């Protein structure tokens, strides 16, 4: 059911991304200080914002999972965090390339976005190991949700505290996303933000479709093969989606989302 609007979404994302690229490189003027290097700004900062929102959404989905005990929320949280981790790598890579370009160093402790991102990635890197370390799927989902909520709250707080500490040392406002960007910069910046957000959402739905499809497949396999293959399910960090398969349900698989 996630596949429906995927194609339309992918097309709009593609259009938005290309438009942003074109405007960023041919329409927006060079920055007074940074010159051409400033073009990375349109990629790095929106990517950081989208990734942060992805982690926070993972926390919100986890809250819904604990409240409703519906495994679909657990899957949404898992996919959101998984995707934000991938985007987070992008943030760190583009950030360090940018740092190398402007200050000649691959890593710079006074750049708050980079520093808080490293910390957030270190924390979320334990999400998958935590899930894998718990065998009982139901408990795995619940513990993962508790982690996602705590880490989701940590993301904004950590961002503020690190910014507080770096600004305290030697304030460097480069990459500050404050609104005092002159006209054209602002237009391209927000366009870039929207297109990367669209990219995140498209990939998120894409992965949700794929996970949902494999859950349907496993349900079908159980129906067809009956109980012969009741070998213990292989251990995995991926959430188990309880999926109902219509027809032939005599004592069959559980309903969609564990009923209360």
């Amino acid at each position: 059911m996630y596949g429906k609007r995927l194609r339309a979404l992918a097309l709009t994302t593609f259009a938005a991304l290309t438009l942003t690229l074109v405007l960023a490189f041919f329409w927006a003027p060079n920055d007074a200080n940074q010159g051409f290097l400033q073009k990375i700004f349109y990629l790095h900062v929106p990517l950081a914002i989208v990734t942060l929102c992805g982690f926070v959404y993972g926390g919100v989905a986890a809250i819904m999972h604990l409240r409703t005990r519906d495994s679909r929320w657990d899957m949404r949280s898992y996919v959101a965090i998984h995707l934000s981790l991938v985007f987070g790598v992008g943030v760190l890579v583009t950030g360090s390339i940018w740092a190398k370009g402007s200050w000649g160093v691959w890593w710079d402790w006074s750049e708050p976005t980079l520093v808080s991102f490293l910390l957030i990635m270190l924390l979320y890197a334990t999400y998958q190991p935590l899930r894998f370390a718990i065998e009982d799927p139901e408990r795995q989902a619940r513990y993962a949700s508790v982690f996602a909520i705590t880490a989701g709250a940590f993301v904004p707080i950590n961002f503020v505290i690190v910014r507080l500490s770096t600004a305290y040392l030697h304030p460097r406002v480069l990459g500050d996303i404050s609104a005092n960007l002159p006209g054209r910069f602002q237009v391209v910046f927000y366009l870039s933000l929207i297109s990367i957000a669209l990219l995140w959402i498209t990939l998120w739905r894409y992965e949700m479709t794929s996970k949902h499809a494999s859950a349907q497949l496993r349900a079908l396999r159980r129906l067809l093969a009956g109980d012969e293959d009741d070998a213990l399910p292989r251990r995995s960090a991926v959430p188990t989606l309880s999926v109902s398969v219509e027809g032939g349900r005599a004592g069959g698989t559980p309903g969609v989302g564990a009923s209360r």
Partner: protein
Amino acid sequence: MIALLEIPLHQAVPYVTAAYTAFFALILIYLAIMAGKLSRIERELGELTELAARRRASGEEPDAP
């Protein structure tokens, strides 16, 4: 804004291109992994349709789970 050394255009180009290609490479790797998962689903579906066909051919009702 601390005045930074004026970075000449040509020197900045490699960094900008590096950043954008790194990002797109990351997305492509992600898509490749997802494509791999998709092909695995396809393969498993193939197996299941075979199983169902064999089951249908042998006329035996799939045993009720």
